[in-house]
Each structure stands twice: as structure tokens, then as C-alpha cells.
């Protein structure tokens, strides 16, 4: 059931993020450290995710996409704004509340090599959340549940008895997904789950995630650094640049009629695996590099690289505003 547009569905959003800002203290500088340094990781970001929906969150390194995901899960402190889950505010949830919430919200990590403890057997890795949350009474019940989960993600039944090193990257990522599914969550933040995998394996994992979504009605925040993979899994896509969402739209609108110049540059930056097509493609290279998050420019963050920059862009930051049904963009000139 992937790929359909969800425009017009009236369900209450599962996750609702309103004007989220995350600032990190980065020490002091200047004479006797009088100047405070603050990393503006995420600023004024708003979006929602509906039940059963996948929102693709795309941005380059340092754009704040992972921080946004982690803020929802209560793993980084929120500086400003509000986060609601199933209608209840969870912005400043305490330790116990975060633990409680983790039954409903889970994280799948990017690096399947670093995110599994090499000294734990697969069965113990997957059973750990079950034990922590008291979902299983004894070892036998845990083993039974783990076997079910491993089958669900397409791993052989004897996988539980082995250690992570015995598995390939794609299989490890399946273990990570099984662990995330153990508590039967409703919402999963997948932080670049396939970026570290080879092309032929990548599709296996993305397809698995789609199947699981169809089976359990999961919602995903699918974080990625380019627009190629998210096209297949997302219903809507948000583009982040230097801590802001610059465009948020239904999937087909992002690809067919992108509005923001950065979205267009991102689309153009992924080469198409077809030589004549790629040679003929008009390539929009955006010169320069993203601004320093310690000292972001006033006005639009994309101004230093934007071909359409005007005076207004330098003075005032554009708000995310509706362009057409199902598409919002933050830009003064497009």
C-alpha cells in the first residue's frame, strides 16, 4: 500500500512537530571565553506524520535531519517548540516517560556494524528490549518471540545463536529492524538505514521495510542524504538545509515539480545511471558549501549558494508556505 498519496486523509497525525528548534552548546570562545558558541542544529521545523505514512527527511551532512529524528525520540533536548505523539505533548518528557514512549517509537541506525554489540548473541540483542520492558516472563518466551521476529525480517531461525560478525551488512540491518520491532512500535525513525549497504542489498532492506509497514501499519520517518532511495518508500518528502525545512511535499510533487532551488539542485546532483540521459541532463550545480551552523546567516540559509538570491533573502528568513495542494516551500523568489 505504498506510494499512494495521503492528501485529504483526516486522521489525527501520529507525530506532530511544531516549530522545533534544537541548539547545542559548543563551548566558549573569545577573550576569557566571553562569547558563547551555539550550534544551530535545527531551527523552527514543523511537520507531521500520519498513521501508516512514511515521511522522507532528506538533507546533507549537518542539515539537522538526524537531530530532528532524535529529538522526536527524546534523545536530544529540545530548545524550543513542541512535539506531540498521538495528540499528547512529549516535548520535555522525563527519563521514565521516554522509556515508556520507546515502546511506541523506535530507532533503526545507519551503521549496522556499529549498532550491534559484537559480544552479544543475536538472540540477546533482539530480546533485550523485551526484557527491559518486561514483555516476556522467561527465557523460553523470549526465545520464542525472538524466533518470530527473526522470521519476520527474513533471517534463518538459527541466526539467534550466532554473533553479529557472522552476518553481512544487510543481514545485520535486518537484526536492527527486528530489535526495533520487538516492542511492537507504531513509529520508527530510520536514520539512513540503507546508506551503508551495497546497491543489491539496499533494495532488499527497503522492500522489507515496506512489507512490514503494510503488515503492521507502521509510520516511518525515513532519513536519507539524497533523493534516490526515498522516492521508493516515501509518501511525502521534507527537504532540510542547514537546520530548516526548505520544502515539504507529496512525493510526486518533489520529483515532478520541485519549487525550492535547493530541491532542484539536489535532484540534479544525483546522476542517472544511463549515459546518454545523464550527458543530456541539464545539471544545476550549486556552488559553495552550506553555512557554518555556529554562525548561520540572517535571512535565508541558502542565500550564499542560491542563483536567484535577492535583497529580501539576505534580510528575512522565508517561512514554509503553501504553494499548491500538498506542497510547501520556504523561498521568497519561487
Amino acid at each position, binding site marked *: 500500500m505504498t506510494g499512494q498519496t495521503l492528501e485529504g486523509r483526516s486522521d489525527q497525525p501520529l507525530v506532530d512537530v511544531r516549530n522545533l528548534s534544537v541548539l547545542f552548546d559548543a563551548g566558549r570562545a573569545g577573550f576569557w571565553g566571553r562569547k558563547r558558541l551555539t550550534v544551530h542544529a535545527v531551527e523552527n521545523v514543523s511537520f507531521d506524520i500520519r498513521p501508516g505514512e512514511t515521511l522522507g527527511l532528506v538533507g546533507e551532512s549537518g542539515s539537522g535531519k538526524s537531530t530532528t529524528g532524535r529529538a522526536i525520540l527524546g534523545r536530544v533536548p529540545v530548545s524550543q517548540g513542541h512535539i506531540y505523539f498521538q495528540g499528547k505533548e512529549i516535548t520535555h518528557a522525563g527519563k521514565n516517560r521516554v522509556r515508556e514512549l520507546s515502546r511506541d517509537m523506535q530507532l533503526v541506525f545507519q551503521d549496522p556494524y556499529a549498532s550491534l554489540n559484537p559480544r552479544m548473541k543475536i538472540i540477546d540483542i533482539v530480546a533485550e528490549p523485551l526484557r527491559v520492558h518486561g514483555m516476556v516472563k522467561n527465557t523460553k518466551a523470549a526465545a520464542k518471540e525472538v524466533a518470530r521476529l527473526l522470521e519476520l525480517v527474513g533471517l534463518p531461525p538459527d541466526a539467534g545463536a550466532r554473533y553479529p560478525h557472522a552476518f553481512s551488512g544487510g543481514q545485520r540491518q535486518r537484526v536492527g529492524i527486528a530489535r526495533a520491532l520487538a516492542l511492537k512500535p507504531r513509529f520508527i525513525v530510520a536514520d539512513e538505514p540503507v546508506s551503508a549497504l551495497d546497491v543489491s542489498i539496499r533494495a532488499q532492506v527497503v522492500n522489507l521495510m515496506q512489507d512490514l509497514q503494510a503488515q503492521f501499519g507502521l509510520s516511518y520517518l525515513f532519513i536519507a542524504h539524497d533523493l534516490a532511495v526515498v522516492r521508493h518508500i516515501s509518501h511525502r518528502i521534507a527537504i532540510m538545509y542547514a537546520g530548516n525545512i526548505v520544502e515539504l511535499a507529496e512525493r510526486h510533487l518533489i520529483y515532478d515539480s520541485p519549487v525550492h532551488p535547493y530541491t532542484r539542485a539536489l535532484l*540534479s546532483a544525483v546522476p542517472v545511471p544511463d549515459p546518454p540521459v545523464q550527458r543530456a541532463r541539464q545539471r544545476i550545480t550549486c556552488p559553495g558549501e552550506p553555512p557554518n551552523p555556529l554562525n548561520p546567516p540572517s535571512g535565508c540559509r541558502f542565500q550564499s549558494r542560491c542563483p536567484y538570491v535577492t535583497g529580501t533573502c539576505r534580510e528575512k528568513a522565508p517561512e514554509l508556505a503553501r504553494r499548491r495542494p500538498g506542497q510547501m516551500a520556504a523561498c521568497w523568489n519561487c
Partner: protein
Amino acid sequence: MNTSPKAPLLEVRDLVVNFYTRGGVVQASRGVSFQVDYGQTLGIVGESGSGKSVAVQAVMGLIFNPGRIEGGDIFFKGRSLLDPAGKKRVRQVRGKEIAMIFQDPMTSLNPVFTIGTQITEVLRHHLGMTKDQAKKRAMDLLDMVDINAPEKRLKQYPHEMSGGMRQRVMIAMALACEPQLIIADEPTTALDVTIQAQILELLTDLQQRLNVSVILITHDLGVVAQLCHRVAVMYAGRIVEVGDADPVFAAPVHPYTRGLIRATPRLDAVTDRMVSIDGVPPDLISPPKGCAFFPRCDQAGKACSRMQALIALGDDRHVSCWCAAKEVTR
């Protein structure tokens, strides 16, 4: 020795490289042959562990213990690079006539020397330039790779630069001695997409302007499509298909090439389901006797459990597959 003008710039012939690890002998390169002509860009694509980097590391003499080159030969302009008698000559060739750009510009630049020191070192060592000559040339080189304010940049350390800028410096260093062959090992993998686009644009431009030959190692078929005249697809330590880029992409013959092209997500096509290749690549400690792709191949027949050499399909295209052989004879 073959030194006719028709000889390719670089020829790798039946290269065998093994790594002696505690777990066993990893057969990283199991008889790899390819050649690069003057002014040509060859893309070598493959997934992790396919042996694509090992093949070019052998060209650059970067196979170290526990790795050993145990078969085959490498010819640059018709002369062997592996000949023990020509060690001194080979050292002159590597780094001067053949230059390399590495994947991670963060770790391949020395953090304790300025950019200027590192570029001029190459120039003074290989070309015997004086300090002033080298500095002037270094500034020209930075200009060539579109780095602004070269004089200021020369005094900076690598950590003062962004990843994209460092990769530009690496390219400038590779160009320093006007090499005839540049080997770029995943030059854009560590970079963000918009920066990758900038670097690819720069490489395309430089290749055309300087008419230098390039070997581009990558796992991204899109990068090959943009940059390469020819493409070689590697799987489990062997080349499974090689040919001119356009026909290979338009009509891939080897099932693995076909799978790889289909599995690469495209921005210009709508699909709800990604195409995957089931299974995983084989273990190179004990690779299968027959075609290495056999267990994952949907067209595998009985013949596939035997070994298969590269079959010529005409137009300088070769493929290592029984099914392809059948199609040709038909």
C-alpha cells in the same frame, strides 16, 4: 616486449592478488584483465569486496603484507610495472605518470603539514623544481581545480578546509606532474551530494581539457554514466562484463550487470518497489568453482558450475556468462 604505438596506455593481464589472513587466503583478485587507452575513462564498478580497489592498488604498488600479487602482469606504455629489475623506473612512473586520488580526503592528506608544503613536495621530488617555481606551480594547480585565493589556501592546514575543498586539493596534487593516467578510487563517496556533483563536474571538465586517461573506481552506476567511456563490472574478484558504457547500460548482458542497473534507484522513473538481487556475494576465502554469481542468478544452468572465461561479443565487449554465450551462438 610490446612497445608498438598501438599498445594501450595501461594493460592489466590476469592479475591474481591473494591476502593471507588468519581466517584463510582471501582471493581478492582472481584473474583480472583490462586495459585503458590514451585519453579514455574507464569506470570499474562493483560492490564492497568485489576486488575493484585491489586491482588498481596493484597498479600503484599499494599491495602490502599480508597481500601478495601472485600472478599476471601490469604494463604501462608496454613496460611491466611488476618486473623486479625495473624497480627504480617504476618508482618514477608511479606518482608522476600515474597519479591516484583516494576516497577519503580527510585521511589521505597529512594533517600536520600545510596544503602548500604537501603540493610542493610532489613537484620538488618528481620534477626537481625550486621552492619558488614549485610555489608558483602549486598556485596554478589550485586555480585549475577552482580554489579561490590560492595564495591564502597554500598556507592552510587540511583541517581548515571542508571535505569538498580537500578533495579539490587531492585532485590538484594528482595533476601536479601532468600524469597520463589518473586513478580515482571512489573520489566522491565521502562527500555530500551537491559537493559530489561539483567534483564530478570538475573531473569531467579536467579529463576533457587535459585529455588524460582516468580509471574511476566506484559503486555508483550514475557516476560511471556521467564520466566514463568504458565500464568494467566486477563481481567476486573477477570482471564479469566490460564494454563501452553506452551499450553496456543500454543492453547489459551479464545477469549481474542487469541486476545492478535495475537495483540502482533512479530519479527519473517512478516505481513503488525497488528491485533487489537476492542473496549475498560469495566468501572470497573459498569462492565457488563455477561462476561466482551462480547462486544468485535467475538464469543459471548446469554449465554455470564450471568456470567461464570472458566471451567476446564484438565491439570490444566481453562478458563472462554461459547464457550470454548461448545468445551469441544463436
